[in-house]
C-alpha cells in the first residue's frame, strides 16, 4: 500500500539579482510501508533538497515548492507549519548526515530523547525515562542508562548517529527519511548502522527513504532506486534490474567509475568526463548530454521524457542489455 506518493515535486531557489535555480525539477516517486526507496546522485542533484521539501524544512524565503506529496491522504507540501510540526517526529522521522550538529550540544542525550517522547507521545517522568532507555538499547547503545546522562560530545560518531536514530524512531514514525546517514562514519560503523536500519524496517514496517551518493549502500538496502541528475530522476528501477541492466548512461557511468573490492585489479576505471557543473538546462535537452559518451543530436533538441514500465529511464539513446558486470569480476570464494 502506498504510504507516500510524491508527484511532480519541484523546488526553485530564487534570489534577487541572480538567476533562479531549479534544484528539484519534477521528481515523482512513491514509498510503501516496509519499503526502502533510494534517492541516489552526486552533489547538487537535488536529493537532499527533496527530503527537506518533504519534511517542510526548507526556508520559506526565496524558495518555491510545487507539486504534491500525499502522505496517507495529507499533502505534505500544502499543510501549515503547525500541522507539519506535529507530523514531524510522530509520523515522519528524519536522520541527518552529521549527528553532532543535529543534536543540541548542551542538553543531555536522555533529555533530548524524552523531550520528543513528551511532545509526541505525552510521556513524562519515569515512563519517559524508561522508554528512552529502551530506545537507546534498541538502537544498540550499550549501557543506555549511563548514556542518557551524557552529552553529545561524549559519544563517538557511531553512537551519536544511533542516538539520533533513537530520537527519529521514538514515536514509531511510519516514514523515515535518512539523508546520507552513514557518510560521516567509518565502514565498520556504517555496516552496523545499515544493519540497524534494515532491522527497523523489517520489524516495524517503517517506510524508509534512503538518500545517498553511495551505490554500494543502495545495493544492500534499497528495494527501489531512483537515480537523480541535475534535479530530475534519470533512472528508476527495482534494485536487481538497476544494477544488472543499468540503462541510463549516467547510471552506467557511475557504476563504471567506482572501484570495486571484487573486481580485477589493474584495469583503469571508466570515469564520466567533465564535472556536474557542465549542465545543459533541462528545457534545452538532456542535462547529462555535455558529459555523455552516447550523445546524439536528439539529446540536445528536446528534453527527454521518463519512459519505460517498471524500469524507467530518461534517455533517447539508452544502453539496453546487461551490464558489463560479473564476467569482469573475480570468482566469489
Amino acid at each position, binding site marked *: 500500500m502506498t504510504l507516500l506518493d510524491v508527484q511532480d515535486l519541484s523546488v526553485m531557489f530564487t534570489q534577487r*539579482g541572480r*538567476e533562479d*535555480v531549479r534544484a528539484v525539477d519534477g521528481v515523482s516517486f512513491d514509498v510503501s510501508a516496509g519499503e526502502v526507496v533510494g534517492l541516489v546522485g552526486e552533489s547538487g542533484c537535488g536529493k537532499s533538497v527533496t527530503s527537506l521539501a518533504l519534511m517542510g524544512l526548507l526556508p520559506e524565503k526565496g524558495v518555491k515548492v510545487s507539486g504534491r506529496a500525499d502522505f496517507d491522504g495529507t499533502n505534505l507540501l500544502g499543510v501549515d507549519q503547525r500541522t507539519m510540526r506535529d507530523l514531524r517526529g510522530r509520523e515522519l522521522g528524519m536522520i541527518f548526515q552529521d549527528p553532532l550538529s543535529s543534536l543540541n550540544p548542551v542538553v543531555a542525550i536522555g533529555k533530548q530523547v524524552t523531550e520528543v517522547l513528551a511532545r509526541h507521545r505525552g510521556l513524562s517522568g519515569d515512563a519517559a525515562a524508561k522508554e528512552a532507555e529502551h530506545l537507546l538499547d534498541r538502537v544498540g547503545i550499550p549501557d543506555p542508562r549511563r548514556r542518557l546522562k551524557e552529552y553529545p560530545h561524549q559519544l563517538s560518531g557511531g553512537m551519536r548517529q544511533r542516538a539520533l536514530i533513537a530520537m527519529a524512531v521514538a514515536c514509531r514514525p511510519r516514514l523515515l527519511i535518512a539523508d546520507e546517514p552513514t557518510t560521516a562514519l567509518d565502514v565498520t560503523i556504517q555496516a552496523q548502522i545499515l544493519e540497524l536500519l534494515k532491522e527497523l524496517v523489517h520489524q516495524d514496517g517503517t517506510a524508509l527513504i534512503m538518500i545517498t551518493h553511495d551505490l554500494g549502500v543502495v545495493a544492500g538496502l534499497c528495494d527501489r532506486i531512483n537515480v537523480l541528475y541535475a534535479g530530475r530522476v534519470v533512472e528508476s528501477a527495482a534494485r536487481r534490474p538497476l544494477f544488472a541492466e543499468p540503462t541510463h548512461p549516467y547510471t552506467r557511468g557511475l557504476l563504471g567509475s567506482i572501484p570495486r573490492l571484487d573486481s580485477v585489479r589493474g584495469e583503469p576505471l571508466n570515469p564520466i*568526463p*567533465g*564535472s556536474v*557543473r*557542465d*549542465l*545543459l*538546462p533541462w528545457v*534545452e535537452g538532456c542535462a547529462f*548530454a*555535455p*558529459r555523455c559518451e552516447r*550523445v546524439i*543530436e*536528439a*539529446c*540536445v*533538441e528536446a528534453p527527454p521524457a521518463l519512459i519505460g514500465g517498471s524500469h524507467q529511464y530518461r534517455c533517447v539513446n539508452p544502453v539496453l542489455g546487461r551490464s558489463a558486470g560479473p564476467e569482469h569480476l573475480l570468482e566469489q570464494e
Partner: protein
Amino acid sequence: MSEGLPRENQQASTAERSGGMALTQLGKRKIEKLERLAELSAINAGERGESLWREAFKRVRHNPAAIVGAVILAIFVLVAVIGPFFVPYSPKDTRWIDQVSVARNIIPGPSADHWLGLDHNGRDVFSRMVVGAQKTLLVGIVATAIGLFFGCLLGGLSGAAYGLGGKAGRRLDNVLMRFVDMLLAMPALLLAVSIVAILRPSLVTVMIAVGVVAVPTFARLLRGSMIAQSNAEYVVASTSLGVSRPRIAFGHMLPNSLAPVIVQATLTLATAIIEAAGLSFLGLGTPDPSEPEWGTMLNDALQTFEYAPRLALFPAVGIIITALGFTLLGEALREALDPKLRK
C-alpha cells in the same frame, strides 16, 4: 554553475528561431559547443581570474549600508582635505568679538555672513568646523595607524612564532602576549589619560594615547587569526613544498589573516575619533584653546550650553556622523570578507 553556458545556448536558440538553418546542423554545432564546454568547465568569465579581494569589493558595492557609509566618508574626507582652503574666515579670527557678550548671554546664531553663527569668542563656527574636520581626520588616521602598526607587529610576530616556531616560538609568544594582556587589562581611558599625563597635552599626545589603546586589540586579533591560519592545510602544503618559514608566515598566513584586521581598523577609526574628541574634551588635547578641534569645541560649548546649545550640537553631530560612516563601512566590509557568507 558555469556562467558561460547559458549565454552560449541562448545564442544558439535565438539563431534557431530566426534563421532557417537545418536543425541537424545546428544540433551538431550545439554538441560541439557542449563538448568544448565540458573540457573547460571552470567559470570562464573574462580573461583574468577574480581574486577574493575583487569579489569582496563587488559585494560591498551592492550593500546599501556600505554605500551610505562610503558617501558620508567621502564628504567628510573631501571637507577635511580641501575644505580648509575654501573657508570664508580664519578659524582663529576673533574679530567679531564685539557682537558677543557672554555676560549678557548673547551669541549670534546662524546668519548669511556666518552660516553656523559665532562662538563665545566671536569666531566663525563654520570655519572652525571645517578646519576641525581636518584635525579630527588626522587624529583618527594617525592614531589608528599607530595602533595598527604596533598591534600588527606584536600580533604578527606572536602568531607566526606560535604557529610555526615550535617550543621557542611559543615562549616568545607567551612573553609578547603577557605584555599585550597588561595593556589590555588597563581601562582604555585611564591608559590614555596616563600617557597624556606623562607626555604633555597636545594633539600628538592624543594620537599616541588613542593609538596605544588600540594596540592590544589589533595584536590579539592578528595573532588569533594567524594561529588559525597556521593550522590551515595550505600551510602544511607549503611546508611540504619546502617553502621557508618566514615566507609561509608573511606570504601566506599574514595576507589571509588581514581581513578581520582591516575591518577592525575601519571600526577603530570611528572609536579613535570619538576617543580623541573625548580626550580633547577633558582638556588633555591641544593646549592652545584657539585651535579648532571638535572635542575642544565641545568643551568650549559647555560654558554657554544653556543659551547656545547649538555650539555643542555641531561638533557632536559631526563626530557622530563620521563615526557612523566608518562603522557602516566597517560592518559592510566584515560582511563582504566573511568567508562563511560567500556563496
